[in-house]
């Protein structure tokens, strides 16, 4: 039962509770007071300075909205643009949804726990906003919906709560980015996301993070996938960040439900990443896959993955490959947990440096050592993601191309 008072009480009790993993953050160092920004019409959106537009594009937000099914754009604490241009796809700011729609109460804090830690608590106690994106039953999104959470005010703590619902037989593609304004240095982003993939629905969620060097990032996400549903989750972070920790959980709660997680991380010096995913396979025919590609240029990366097979006739695979380019640390922690006979679970993990033999091979074709290295790195990062619409694959490819220069 939805009871906001009760949620707040539980949140209050967890206000000092440390996260289960990852370095503890003192949130008092950040300011979470609202930052007013006025709503922007289409023309204004297109008139954003070019330098900022570039930041946005890197995070998947195209201000022209061409080939986009809808847009949600939040700057600091305010929604500055929210629009849908496709029947059957709804995009609503969560505060508005909580005010006007009863149905949201069946989803709000239904998967994530409000008292999980100080971050979940902070979001409930001072919710800035967030998006609700819903595909109505049977609707198929032609173009992806784009959502962007932008930070401009230095020292801000942004608290958001997102809910994504793919109703029965629907198909929904979302590209979401978080980015910081070029001048911004320090801040915190705390985001709750709850994903509901209903019977035979397909949801692809591609998240591109583009942070400032001194950012603290604590996403908290939980998903559930019903019978025959597919949840495809891609995460790309190739820019520096002070500390990023997340461990999204997915529950496959109907037979033949499938979840696939792909992540591509580049860790720069001074950055600390602790990420991974956990998937519970609870019904026969469930499939899960976690694929991570990490590169360290001197940053510290912990790449986790945890697959839990609770019933027979499930299949799960975990793949974690790390490349040490320039010092740093990559710590792969793959976990497989088969709880009954008849599960089929596997993992492969490899951490190393670029093979000299591969560099030499490309050099023999006329590439310089640097070009050869860049080519191999690009190849390493290019994962084929089955079922991903071509536009989204293109976004990922672009992110990789763009960051290429930084990687070297």
């Amino acid at each position, binding site marked *: 039962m939805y009871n906001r008072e009760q949620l707040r009480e539980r949140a209050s009790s967890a206000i000092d509770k440390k996260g289960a993993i990852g370095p503890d953050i003192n949130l008092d160092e950040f300011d979470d007071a609202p930052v007013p920004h006025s709503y922007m019409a289409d023309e204004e959106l297109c008139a954003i300075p070019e330098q900022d537009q570039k930041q946005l594009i890197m995070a998947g937000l195209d201000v022209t909205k061409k080939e986009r099914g809808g847009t949600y754009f939040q700057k600091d604490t305010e929604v500055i643009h929210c629009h849908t241009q496709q029947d059957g796809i709804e995009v609503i700011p969560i505060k508005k949804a909580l005010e006007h729609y009863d149905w949201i109460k069946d989803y709000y804090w239904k998967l994530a726990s409000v008292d999980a830690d100080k971050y979940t608590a902070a979001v409930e106690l001072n919710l800035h906003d967030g998006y609700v994106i819903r595909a109505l039953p049977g609707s198929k999104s032609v173009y992806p919906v784009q959502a962007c959470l932008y930070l401009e005010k230095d020292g801000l703590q942004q608290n958001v709560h997102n809910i994504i619902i793919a109703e029965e037989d629907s198909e929904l593609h979302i590209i979401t980015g978080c980015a910081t304004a070029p001048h911004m240095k320090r801040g915190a982003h705390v985001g709750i996301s709850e994903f509901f993939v209903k019977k035979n629905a397909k949801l692809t969620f591609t998240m591109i993070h583009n942070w400032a060097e001194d950012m603290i990032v604590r996403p908290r996400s939980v998903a559930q996938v019903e019978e025959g549903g597919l949840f495809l989750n891609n995460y790309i972070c190739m820019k520096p960040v002070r500390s990023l920790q997340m461990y999204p959980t997915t529950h496959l709660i109907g037979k033949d439900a499938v979840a696939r997680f792909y992540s591509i991380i580049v860790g720069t010096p001074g950055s600390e990443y602790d990420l991974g995913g956990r998937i519970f396979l609870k019904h026969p025919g469930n499939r899960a896959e976690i694929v991570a590609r990490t590169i360290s240029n001197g940053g510290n990366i912990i790449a986790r993955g945890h697959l839990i097979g609770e019933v027979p006739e499930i299949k799960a695979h975990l793949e974690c490959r790390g490349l040490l380019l320039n010092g740093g640390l990559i710590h792969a922690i793959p976990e497989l947990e088969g709880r009954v006979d008849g599960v089929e679970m596997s993992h492969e993990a490899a951490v190393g440096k670029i093979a000299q033999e591969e560099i030499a*091979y*490309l050099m*023999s074709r006329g590439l310089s050592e640097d070009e050869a290295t860049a080519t191999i790195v690009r190849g390493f990062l290019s994962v084929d993601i089955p079922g991903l619409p071509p536009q989204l694959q293109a976004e990922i490819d672009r992110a990789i191309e763009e960051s290429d220069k930084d990687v070297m």
Partner: protein
Amino acid sequence: MLQIEDLQVKLGEKEILKHIDLEIRPGETHILFGPNGSGKTSLLMTIMGYPQYEVVAGKITFKGEDITHLPIDERAKLGVGMSFQRPPTINGLKTRQMVRLCAKDEIDEETLAKQVNFEGFLDRDVNAGFSGGEIKRSELLQMMAQAPDLMLFDEPESGVDMENISLVGKTIASLLQKDLPDVETKSKMQARLNRTKMGLIITHTGYILDYVAADKGQVLYDGMLSCVSNPHEILSCVGESGYKECVRCITENN
């Protein structure tokens, strides 16, 4: 011209090439024979510039330039290219992209690939899961795109099936400007003058000789090029009496 003088090479602690003298003039293709482990691949890798093959003495000159200590890519830029016996897999790099990287200019990789029956592999990662024969065709395709002046082929026909072998053989011949002469070739002299490409081909079977008009055969034995002769002669001699006998007999005759 490629000129190798008194070359000595070490791999780790092991002396693998003791004394190599070799000269390949523009327009010439040589065939390199030798038992397993005799150092044939090592010689090619040394010419290509693989740093683990440490040149302890001697000199390699190409187009008048001393390349003994040049890095691999600079040799490639000068026009040295190699088709490898066991190339590494490069995950995430499509064969199509690789072929484009090899070419200095725009190329049509589909058309090139068709020539060696390889269109179906362009969208696979370079060498990932390629069979033995497929690797050879992939390497050959890269040579076609790169079109270097000196081509080092390490067993280009090993493992290639009967249907593809003539394709591979003819393609190598045309890359090296060494197609077998047609009966009615009028201006053989002219053709010879126009030839600029140089080739060094390692073979065990000699099948390649059915397609490529090679100029010389060389036998690498005991770290040395122990004989220079007509490649067909070497092949039949080795076939009849083995490398040891063959090397002795020919050395004595010289």
